């Protein structure tokens, strides 16, 4: 964290090698991010996005998070914050109430916008690295992402139990660790590896892996990609990205009992 002026702090969070810089005059924002994004704070002179954060009440608070696009600017509103992101211009701003975890929501939206331009995406999924290969486990809440993550043996490095970072790399894809966590309550490791498989998760009476038809695989990916708007062009781009992903990466169904032996199938 650098203090660029008497009242301004500047620090950069980098997920998957994509740096996002925050500027703020609020010490509490720096401290919150230092705890939340430990392991993901880096030095960077060339951020993909620079976001100014101020402590102030939102002008139009709303109960549920809303994301709307006007031209190239995305506006995010919520009960305790409002934000604007301009990915083309590389700028953004957040007004948040004191103590709000707004930055985490804004960062997720920001990354989803930045990644969409590269055929990459954030996926509602746990992911982990074993033997130099990444395995991604997607499913709705309750499908077992955190359960499977908690059961991981010592030779497994967890990338996240909640939001996976997936990006194309040559003819395949890589998964990178993220600081976005679920019930595990801690960030993933800031490492990446080529994706070996995507598993559609569900709990069951036995541990088994079944093949999945490409259409089902693509539907599952589309359901679980994080994106917050319904504009036709971004939806078209996400669909193309999901189709490319399921043709490049094996997709299977993992049914598992909540026991560490489930990991015997993941190698």
């Amino acid at each position, binding site marked *: 964290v650098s203090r660029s002026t008497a009242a301004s702090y500047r620090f950069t969070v980098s997920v998957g090698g994509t740096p996002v810089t925050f500027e703020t005059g609020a010490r509490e924002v720096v401290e919150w991010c230092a705890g939340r994004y430990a392991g993901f704070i880096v030095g960077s002179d060339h951020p993909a996005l620079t976001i100014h954060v101020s402590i102030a009440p939102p002008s139009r608070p709303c109960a549920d998070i809303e994301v709307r696009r006007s031209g190239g600017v995305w506006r995010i509103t919520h009960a305790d914050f409002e934000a604007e992101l301009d990915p083309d211009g590389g700028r953004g701003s957040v007004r948040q109430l004191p103590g709000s975890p707004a930055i985490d929501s804004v960062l997720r939206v920001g990354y989803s916008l930045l990644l969409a331009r590269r055929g990459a995406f954030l996926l509602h999924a746990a992911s982990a690295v074993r033997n130099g290969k990444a395995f991604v486990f997607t499913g709705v809440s309750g499908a077992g992402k955190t359960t499977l993550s908690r059961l991981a043996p010592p030779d497994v490095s967890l990338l996240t139990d909640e939001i996976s970072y997936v990006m194309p790399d040559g003819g395949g894809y890589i998964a990178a660790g993220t600081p976005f966590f679920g019930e595990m309550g801690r960030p993933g490791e800031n490492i990446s590896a080529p994706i070996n498989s995507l598993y559609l998760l569900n709990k069951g009476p036995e541990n088994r892996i079944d093949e999945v038809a490409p259409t089902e695989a*693509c539907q599952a990916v589309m359901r679980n990609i994080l994106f917050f708007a319904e504009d036709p062009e971004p939806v078209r781009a996400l669909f193309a990205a999901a189709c490319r992903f399921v043709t490049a990466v094996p997709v299977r169904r993992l049914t598992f009992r909540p026991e560490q032996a489930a990991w015997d199938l993941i190698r």
Partner: protein
Amino acid sequence: LTPVYLARNPDVAERPFGDEMLVVLLAESRLFCLNPQAALLWRNADGRTPPENIVEKAICREYEVEPAEALADARAAVEELAAAGLLRLSDSPL
């Protein structure tokens, strides 16, 4: 039977997977998976060819089914696709 002509909604993105077809209705961000017969209807919904002809020329040849049975299935599929907003129907060529 009143002649019905079928045309694809142009505001979609589509991707074939084998005989099946995934279609996204872009404005609503809704994803549909068309089975092989529905995918054939979709591919041939050019606004000029009535479903009877699609059934005769595409579905019956591909799947060796009786025309009457195939036509009944096709009518049901057309209704579903139209209700979903994927197909536009007209009693004259589109």
